[in-house]
């Protein structure tokens, strides 16, 4: 009940996608090794009405992307086993074949590394946008909401075609 009341009080930018489109049909994969950061991401986006899944490293993210359609991936960079840059390259390559998620899926990098060199490395791997750490709930919702609106607009165009 409390979260419902809170969502009504949220500024407009944070609820646009949920209000105008079906946010619950927008599937977000959160890839983050730090458990407390993962909890933050999952809870904030879940509270925004999005369908959220989580992976603790790049390897698991690639496996999940292969199985299920995701509309957006939030990808931490520094992770054990497989880092976010490698996972992004694999998803972009579409090999081995991803059954669920299209290789063109938007991937937003999240990292405390924010030098021009870092950012060009993330872009070269195929990250479409970048959210520097630390960020708050408002910035996170804004960036995911923007991606959701773009996807909803694309779906609408496909439907009208």
């Amino acid at each position, binding site marked *: 009940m*409390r*979260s419902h009341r*809170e969502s009504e009080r*949220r500024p407009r930018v*944070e609820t646009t996608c949920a209000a105008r489109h079906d946010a619950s049909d927008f599937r977000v994969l959160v890839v983050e090794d*730090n*458990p*407390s*950061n993962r*909890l*933050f991401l999952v*809870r*904030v986006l879940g*509270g925004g009405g999005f369908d959220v899944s989580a992976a603790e490293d790049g390897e698991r993210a690639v496996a999940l992307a292969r199985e299920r359609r995701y509309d957006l991936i939030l990808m931490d960079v*520094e992770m*054990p086993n497989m880092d976010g840059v490698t996972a992004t390259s694999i998803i972009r390559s579409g090999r081995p074949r991803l059954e669920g998620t299209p290789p063109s899926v938007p991937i937003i990098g999240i990292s405390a590394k924010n030098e021009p060199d870092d950012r060009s490395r993330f872009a070269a791997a195929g990250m479409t946008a970048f959210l520097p750490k*630390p960020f*708050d*709930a*408002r910035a996170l*919702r804004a960036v995911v909401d923007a991606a959701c609106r773009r996807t909803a607009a694309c779906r609408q165009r496909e439907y009208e075609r």
Partner: protein
Amino acid sequence: MTQPTDRADRSPLFAGDQVMNLREATHRLGGDEELLRELAEMFFEDAEALLGVVREGYADPAQSQEVRRAAHSLKGLSSNFGAQRTMTAAFAVEKLAEASRLTDLPPAVQELEQEVARLNAGLREAFPAR
């Protein structure tokens, strides 16, 4: 060091040296106080074990990767509470372990131990067991 002038200045929640800043932390979470409590409980569960990895490994160059990673995790964990002092101390250990600067590590680890203890005490006070 200037003398505190009022209660807010003495409070660890609002002090300039930022043992923690729960007002800022709650704001970052979009006002979700329950989530902050959950993050604090995560800190109570994990911080001591991470500190243990640092404590037991810092003198051994073979364990510098584990020490670096544990310090990095402590930095991330404490960032949820605006705990700048702990974050700074954890970052120092992370960097020293990465560079295998074994002679510089003992004072940095000691500093980190102190900061984690202060943060832990502050969080225990703010979030007493239910």
